[in-house]
């Protein structure tokens, strides 16, 4: 566990000052940028609405993207958020990569495409290229429900071993603060089994006593941000349990970490993130944090 002084130091230092939202001709990219905008408003950060027209993009599509950037820019103005609009042509990854480096962007928001979700393990998708290729943190947004303009309940599924805990807690708390939402932490663990007894049933309280250390640390960090949270630890299969929990409790947004399983590992053991992406009934943000404690 971190000593308190160190803890409070990273709380102070860890901040998003510059946020980039990738916008294209699709509605879901605009909705994803709205999440980024609200986050920027909460973090008092500068936002970059960035539309990169790939080769072969029709003029109508280019115009649609341009209109989206204009709408977002206007909205930012109304919210008193400093915004820059970038309209470029070329390879999106390359161009955005350049902006990230030149402007010292802290986090990039991009929407997943329907075709991304259809592909196994996200292979050869723009989202995957962004996720792996950019040097800053990345929030991939899957937009599925346009009725929840500002989600009131956020489901945060957590693994037993979590990296970049301070940034994850910071991001989650910022989102909850931006929407004035409640956070529901959710950890799926392997069922407890004995060879001759099969599965051993534990009550929720008994499960909670087995909370992994990283999750306890995550909660400690979250508690620094004055957010309302509930936690739940249940045995089951991660992917399906998350979507069932979200649907049953009517959560309006899921924030979870990016998958760290290789394609081979995913093929053998399955990929919970991929399953949630495909089956979620509410919006989903997949966070790949890259900030380190200063």
């Amino acid at each position, binding site marked *: 566990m971190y000593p308190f002084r160190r803890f409070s130091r990273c709380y102070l230092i860890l901040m998003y000052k510059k946020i980039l939202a990738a916008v294209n001709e699709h*509605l879901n990219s605009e909705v994803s940028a709205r999440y980024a905008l609200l986050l920027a408003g909460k973090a008092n950060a500068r936002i970059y609405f960035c539309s990169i027209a790939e080769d072969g993009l029709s003029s109508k599509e280019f115009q649609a993207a341009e209109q989206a950037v204009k709408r977002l820019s206007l909205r930012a103005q109304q919210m008193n958020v400093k915004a820059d609009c970038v309209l470029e042509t070329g390879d999106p990854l390359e161009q955005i990569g350049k902006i990230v480096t030149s402007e010292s962007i802290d986090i990039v928001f991009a929407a997943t495409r329907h075709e991304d979700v259809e592909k196994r393990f996200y292979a050869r998708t723009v989202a995957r290229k962004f996720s792996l290729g950019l040097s800053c943190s990345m929030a991939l947004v899957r937009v599925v429900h*346009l*009725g929840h303009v500002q989600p009131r309940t956020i489901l945060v599924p957590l693994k037993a071993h979590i990296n970049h805990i301070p940034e994850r807690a910071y991001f989650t708390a910022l989102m909850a603060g931006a929407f004035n939402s409640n956070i529901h932490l959710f950890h799926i663990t392997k069922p407890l089994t004995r060879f001759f007894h099969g599965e051993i049933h534990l*009550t929720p309280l008994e499960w909670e006593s087995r909370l992994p250390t990283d999750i306890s640390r995550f909660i400690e960090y979250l508690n620094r941000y004055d957010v309302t949270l509930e936690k*739940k630890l249940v045995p089951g299969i991660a992917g*399906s349990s998350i979507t*069932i929990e979200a649907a*049953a409790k009517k959560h309006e947004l899921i924030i979870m970490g990016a998958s760290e399983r290789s394609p081979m590992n995913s093929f053998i053991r399955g990929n919970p993130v991929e399953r949630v992406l495909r089956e979620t009934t*509410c919006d989903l943000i997949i966070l790949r944090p890259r900030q380190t404690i200063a």
Partner: protein
Amino acid sequence: MKINSLTKDEVFRSLVTAETGLSEEEAARRLREFGLNEISEVKKKRLLSRFLGQFTHFLAVLLWLAAFLSFLSEHLHPGGGMLTLGLAIVAVIVINAAFTFIQEYRAEKALEALRKLLPFFVKVVREGREKEIPAREVVPGDIVLLAEGDKIPADARLIETAALRVNHASLTGESEPLLRNHEPCSGELVESPNIAFAGTTVISGSGRAVAFATGMRTEFGRIAHLTSAVEAGLSPLQKEIVKATRVVASIAAVVGLFFFLLGFAMGRNFWENFIFGIGITVALIPEGMLPTVTLALAMGSQRMARRKALIKTLTSVETLGSVTVICTDKTGTLTQNDMAARALWADNTVFGVREAGAGTAREVLLAALLCNNARCIDGQYKGDPTETALLRAARETLGDITAARLCEVPFDADRKMMTTVNAVDGRRTAFSKGAFEKLLPLCSHVLVKGTRLALDDAMQAQASDAYHALMDRGLRVLAFAQRTLDSEEAEGARGEQIETDMTFLGLIGLEDPPRPEVPEAIRKCHDAGIRIIMITGDASRTAVAIAREIGLVRGNPLVVEGPEFKRMSDRVLREKLANKEVIFSRMTPKHKIRVVSALKDEGEVVAVTGDGVNDAPALKRADIGIAMGIVGTDVAKEASDVVLLDDNFATIVSAVEEGRTVYENIKKFITYIFASNIPEAVPYLAYILLRIPLPLTIIQILAVDLGTDMLPALALGSEKPTPGIMKQPPRSAKERLLNFSLISRAYLFLGPIEAAAGMFGFFWMLNRGGWVWGASLPASGSLYVQATTACLTAIIVTQVANVFACRSSRESLFSIGFFSNWLIFPGVAVELLLQLFIVYHPFGNRIFSTLPLPRDAWLVLIPFAVFLLIAEEARKLVQRRYVPPGRR
């Protein structure tokens, strides 16, 4: 902030659309991004992989290994009979896999039923023009046109309405039409009057709406997702069978390996030891157990069907017997759903309805008669049960009264009241009926003995006390009011203009009588240690009163109301559920899944009843989902494990009794099957320890396990319930199917007697043929073959006695009735006929390596059967005398 709280322009901005709709190009782009507007199934294990999974569990892997070794030894050491063994083992694996798969397989049809509730075509506005498109092509941002009779294709925010009423029955179970509007409002989407939901129907009026969620993202899709993705997990019996097979397979493997090594130590050669090792493993594995369990469950399900509980998944038969909590609806399940007006309160007096023909009471009945949409046609009352009850009471007391209806403000689930304006005695009078708490605030006066008085605090308190008193009698209470209108007021007046400054008339209490058999069924549940939790939409007091009347609660139950429930955290909910007597009131079906999940988290085995579309997730989540056969929707029926053909709670209790009986019977035939494993294993011990040829071949073991034992075991599965089965608490989760008492009875008591018979038969036959100890005994000689046949026959003969012994574990065979289970006799007859075929038919001889036995060989074996029966009766007598009944 949600879309319901936005203004029309904000909705357009949020969804990036306009009054003129989307362009075709944008619609196509959104279709690509958001997918088709359709209900799709959550990706699950394919049928083939589920079937293949039956070949890879622990027992199957062990058997595969044995089969592989058999084929290998046949290849390396041909002619040793190992090919037959290998094939027999593979057959066992396939049979077990097929039976287990059949037991677990269930076609998922709930989604098909859901899909039928969505429309095929829909009218939208695109590029400023109305056009009809397939409903599956609707995208977020589309302007959808709604007209009477339309099914709504997507969740949509209303932007224009003209007296639009929708029916949410498919979503909420609420059949009353709901008036919709397009004004911004706060609160939950599902409760917002400016939202139209996919799968619901426009009853009247028209409107325009902007789609904001399509396909699986709609509220309907959410139910479909839960219905499709939620899995109840393994049933208690399946878990027990997994544990049992692991125990048995481990014992078999360890014993096989031990004696294989022992044989080596005693100097036998590899192949002899190998055959021996495989043989003892096969002997100790009860190959017939899984098929017999499946068939016993199938027979149990047929018996339940005769008791009006239709079982859809076989394992549910036993799960019903393990149930510790039943979450049940009230109306129609505990009660008859046959409303009758029982009491009328007016002039601060409570009347019987027949006594209420004069004064203010008459005015109350007049309001009940005129503010009513039920009809009496040829003496038959048609309409909503509450309205028909009111109409019947009013007509029977007042006679036929006609008063032209000038207009109506229909019932609305949000307003919880309705109003009609009628021409009565030349005057226009508005009559209202509805929930007391909704109607009273609209009244400024009260009618007392013909005089219109101001409705002061004292009068309000009187009315409120009367309201509570009627509810405490278990009555559903409706309030009535009236107002005389000016002639111009009635013309084109809206609901809120008419329903003001009204005169409060009085109350009518309606009774939905409990089903007569329910109190007895509830008493049985209490005796059986099963908790019953009532989940109802009724008010708390009515729910508690009914619960008391039927004996559901005795003390002061904990009542959780819907609004409180919604705010409650899971932890608090679990604490509340720990109370002995809990009632959930003012609840909607969508809340059930949370109650069920919380109970399951605490380790309860939960049965839940349901009938609506949004009951489906809870029905799937529960250990046993019970759908109503008469009033239930197809979706609920498809999502359930059991369908009640009579919608009656008492049927659930009968099914629980049957389920408990099935579990007891499974233990009976497992004792029977396991007992025969000892006489199958002992010949192998003799083979290695006494250095004699094997007294029983592997194929003969399989003849017992998969042949002669099967039908008698099934007959044991049809034993009648033991008296007092519903007086025991539910089976503890810690109680094992293969407990010490069962294993010791089978392996240490019944089994050794049978083993003695088998070995006696073997040696008696050898002795009769002139064999003396130490003389050579060729394995191909007829004397040896006859001796193995005698050993097999001894096992069969003692198993005949064993089937009678296993009919009870404690009671004397003669006290339960020798002939009380007639199926035993055909079972035994078939067992004996099979043995005769094996012993005397040349084809049987060839398959099972047997030879005909002389008649006296049978006669010397019969005393062993008699001895087994007498010994069992003695054991039971000792148990009855010295072991208390509760101890297992």
